[in-house]
């Protein structure tokens, strides 16, 4: 993209530097890539990395770092990705000190009312939304009654060819039929001892009926990260997209990007309205119940030609609709208030 002047964005999000490459495919990193591809002068602060080792006054340390960075870099836009270590009052202070700077945020966790941590998620989102000129969420704002739909927009989980590089639809003799990776929080990296995720029973039932499963994060199998995640993904024909909580329009964990972006055939849950973007049984396969899912896994594991065809079309569609360049360009259009010439289905 070419702007009349260089646009400077200060992107503050978890950059996972302290995880030493374990989460190199994170949402924040993909957003960074997208902005750079759009010729944005981008400076990033990894808020949680910055506070590693800081035990006291964390919020004040972070506020001062952001304040100084804005003073030195003078960005046009400050984009927050979660940044939960700043308090509501700090956002107010930033807005009052930098009145001409545009503030924006993206929030990628579920905002489903039935979700167990809903109140926490809602307050994390709202603590920034008052002073953010634009908000981006991975749920359709129209179905939420506590977001200002005039300044809140949907963004999908993006993919980038430099990260989602696999093309599993080109391979026939893959050792596993279906892939799923569960974790008890990506920052933690290991499973909690006495914690049970509501999806475990669902996945255990599948593994009883499907032999060639590649499931991680349950049955005492540890979760996988980094290159190992990609190694395991490269061995699978299909992937299950199963999110926590009850269905809510357009929400999905970033699992969907890993599955479809790497050319695995995707089993998507119904009632999340992804049929709006992907043709049923042509670009993705949709399921409503566990029995339906099991039957479909069995069917497609035996029909490799059909599996490869759907995977390929789904992969192409996902990369054309939800690539990082396009997602960040759309974000820029909302932040800087310009019109996108070629709008995609998910854009307002």
């Amino acid at each position, binding site marked *: 993209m070419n702007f009349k002047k260089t646009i400077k964005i200060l992107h503050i999000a978890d950059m996972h530097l302290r995880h030493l490459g374990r989460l190199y495919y994170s949402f924040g990193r993909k957003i960074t890539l997208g902005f750079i591809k759009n010729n944005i002068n981008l400076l990033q602060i990894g808020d949680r990395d910055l506070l590693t080792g800081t035990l006291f006054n964390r919020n004040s340390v972070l506020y001062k770092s952001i304040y100084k960075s804005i003073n030195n870099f003078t960005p046009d836009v400050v984009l927050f990705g979660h940044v939960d270590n700043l308090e509501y*009052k700090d956002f107010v202070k930033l*807005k*009052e000190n930098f009145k001409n700077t545009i503030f924006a945020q993206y929030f990628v966790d579920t905002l489903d009312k039935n979700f167990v941590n809903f109140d926490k998620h809602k307050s994390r989102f*709202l603590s920034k939304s008052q*002073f953010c000129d634009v908000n981006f969420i991975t749920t359709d704002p129209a179905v939420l009654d506590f977001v*200002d739909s005039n300044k809140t927009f949907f963004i999908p989980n993006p993919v980038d060819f430099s990260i989602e590089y696999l093309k599993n639809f080109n391979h026939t003799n893959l050792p596993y039929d279906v892939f799923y990776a569960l974790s008890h929080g990506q920052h933690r990296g290991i499973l909690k001892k006495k914690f049970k995720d509501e999806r475990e029973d669902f996945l255990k039932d599948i593994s009883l009926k499907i032999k060639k499963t590649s499931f991680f994060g349950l049955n005492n199998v540890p979760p996988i990260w980094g290159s190992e995640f990609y190694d395991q993904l490269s061995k699978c024909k299909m992937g299950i997209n199963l999110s926590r909580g009850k269905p809510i329009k357009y929400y999905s964990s970033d699992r969907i990007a890993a599955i479809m972006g790497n050319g695995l055939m995707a089993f998507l849950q119904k009632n999340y309205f992804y049929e709006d973007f992907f043709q049923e049984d042509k670009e993705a396969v949709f399921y409503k119940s566990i029995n339906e899912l099991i039957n479909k896994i069995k069917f497609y594991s035996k029909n490799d030609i059909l599996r490869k065809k759907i995977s390929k079309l789904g992969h192409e569609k996902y990369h054309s609709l939800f690539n990082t360049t396009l997602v960040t360009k759309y974000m820029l259009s909302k932040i800087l208030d310009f019109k996108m010439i070629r709008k995609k289905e998910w854009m307002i």
Partner: protein
Amino acid sequence: MDDIKKILIYRTDRYGDFLISAPFVYSLKKKYPKSQIHIMCSAYNENLIKNFTFVDKTMVFKDGFFSRFQMIFSYFNKKYNLIIVLDGKRRSLYHSLFLKGKRYCLIKNYFLIKFCSFFKINYVINSESQTQFKNIAYLSNLIGFNLIKNNVFENYQFPKFKLNLPKKYIVFHLDEKWFIKTYYFDYTDINPSTASILKILNFILKNKNIKIVLTTGYIKLPIIDFLKKYIYKKKHLNNNIFIIENSSFNEIQYIISKSKALICCEGGVSHVSYFFNKSTLALYEGDRKNFHNFWTGHMNKLVAHHREDIKILSKSNSLFYKKILKTLG
């Protein structure tokens, strides 16, 4: 939040303050149509506020120590599902503490922010870094609904007025705000002479084929008598300018609702014109740009002009006159 039956809102300041939060009250009623909304208001506003169909009951927040003390006793332990302190005043917040219910406050004061943080009262900072309308919209999100940007005067019950109004007109609201002796002393004094007001009125009549309704405020201004004398003498002016004096605010609201545009000093009347979607030229204090934006930034049909600039009324090509033409379309 679905079983909300009784809601109390504190808005004990002026009518313009209530108007800016009227969409909040309107949207709250739409969200919880079966709820009873009670407004704790000031004595000035009660008669106006009770005409809104989305308000079920108004109560006056009394002045004086003993009256307030009495109020605490009469309201002590009353139960509301939601208590919302929209005026951000200490007295309202303290009074609300004697009632039972989930509390939300819109506050600006540093002490109250600390107070609310300490006692874990839900609060929204009413920061002047953006419009008050946005802050109120955020408060509504926090409670769990979206602000509906609708005409809050929908179904407003205007009494029957006996007003002599022309068919097509603009309103020129000449009230005490044009003179610092009758308004805030730290404001720039416009203090227009009879001649300069006549010059503006003539300019409008000359450039636009529209009649002018000149309304006044609560305070009787000597300039009105001078204007009347002059206008009544000149047939051309007498046929086109209608002076309506000593009108109630309700009458002024009605006059604005039927007008094409409004020229005024920024205040309650400009908030009224916003809800009736009328073009408005409002004069504001130049060194209070943020403050002005805080109050009027959400008004899409408002053209603002510095009070200082109006001193050069003699130059017919000045920016002020250009803005008049822009406002009148």
